[in-house]
């Protein structure tokens, strides 16, 4: 399947969020693609809270089988999580396991009032009861393919489909 244009999807996603996101909502981007999206959404929606970033490596459920992620980025939550209205931002929603890990990590900072989820694309294949409140588009790809969000030197975002590298298949 040909991937939709990421820039157009991001605009649609922002417009879908706008009526339901108050100015004191807090965005948290999930590394790596989710952080790029969250930076843009944060600007477009004119949010007051500083932007948060999360790397779920310390909370992944496949650590036992795959070890620690090679390049772990520090999570940075620069606002009070207790009672915050949080929106997690990710690029590709798939099994839901990354979102589970992000929610667990977030609760180690405090008890948010609410957590919602924004994703650029949803490829189906959920293994946990997790659903996005804000979505760019649903897409279909084969099981042996992965969708990747890329960022060019001038900051433009695009979606590409690649075959899954052999060692990453279960």
């Amino acid at each position, binding site marked *: 399947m040909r991937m939709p244009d990421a820039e157009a999807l991001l605009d649609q996603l922002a417009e879908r969020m706008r009526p339901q996101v108050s100015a004191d909502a807090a965005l948290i981007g999930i590394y790596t693609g989710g952080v790029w999206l969250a930076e843009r959404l944060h600007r477009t929606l004119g949010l007051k809270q500083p932007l948060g970033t999360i790397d779920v490596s*310390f909370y992944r459920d496949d650590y036992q089988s795959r070890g620690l992620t090679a390049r772990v980025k520090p999570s940075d939550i620069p606002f009070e999580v207790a009672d915050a209205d949080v929106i997690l931002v990710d690029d590709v929603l798939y099994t839901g396991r990354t979102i589970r890990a992000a929610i667990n990590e977030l609760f180690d900072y405090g008890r948010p009032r609410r957590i919602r989820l924004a994703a650029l694309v949803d490829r189906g294949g959920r293994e946990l009861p997790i659903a996005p409140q804000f979505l760019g588009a649903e897409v279909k790809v084969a099981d042996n393919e992965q969708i990747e969000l890329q960022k060019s030197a001038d900051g433009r975002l695009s979606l590409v489909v690649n075959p899954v590298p052999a060692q990453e298949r279960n």
Partner: protein
Amino acid sequence: MAYNPQLNANGELHHLLTIEGLPRDIIVRILDTAHSFLSVTEREIKKVPLLRGKAVFNLFFEPSTRTRTTFEIAAKRLSADVINLNVGTSSQTKGETLLDTVANLSAMHADMFVVRHAQSGAAHLIARHVAPYIHVINAGDGRHAHPTQGLLDMFTIRHYKQDFTNLRVAIVGDVLHSRVARSQIHALTSLGVPEVRVVGPRTLLPTHVSELGVHVFHDMARGLKDVDVVIMLRLQNERMNGALLPSAQEFFKYYGLTPEKLAGAKPDAIVMHPGPMNRGVEIDSSVADGNQSVILPQVTFGIAVRMAVMSILAGNA
């Protein structure tokens, strides 16, 4: 590729025994991972679930409250169960061999051993004999190595100086008996520090230390001139009674770090010490507590570095 007892068949870190021969990218990965753990240690809940259900045995055949405590905190912040054994006071005095002690603890389903021993090579010996799923961390063996101390020192230097490749680093004092100094020298050269100096009296420097790629100084003023980092080593009290040193006072006069001697280093030089310090022997209180001292941050960074080492090891089958 030469056999490296620290690496598994995939070239991943399986045990941490020494920095000597450790691939540079593994050192850098440990430092990068530790950087991410630093933010965990500053949160409300300072725990992550990586080592949940794992049993870490702190196996200390030589007393060390601080190192044992920082390993214990690191393991607990990774959600592991920690069992502390001061073996010097139990089985060994009853005549049990090192390997029998380890075999018994393995039968209690240990997943990781943190080993401190007065004999060089003790951690290597244990690593060679444990089941393949068990990981061993050397927490100091004889005069040989103390790799996590070396790594936390590298983390500290990188934190304050960013780039290793334009630094002048002086290691001062009792290099002869120091496993810390050996680990530091291997780490510094591996990370590309162009000038590593060792400074001390002839009696406290190993005879062929220059073969490790370091510059040797016996004079403090020359040794500290224009350095970016001063690492003071602990002068162990038991060394003072032998023929190596006339007295602690005389050592302090020539090699103790005072504000006057530190003035010869670069104005933004940092002062490090692996602890515990002997104030008035190797370091003056006004330097230890001064604004160039990063001795307490070293302790804080040590926990993040040990969390990184443990989580990388335990994740590599």
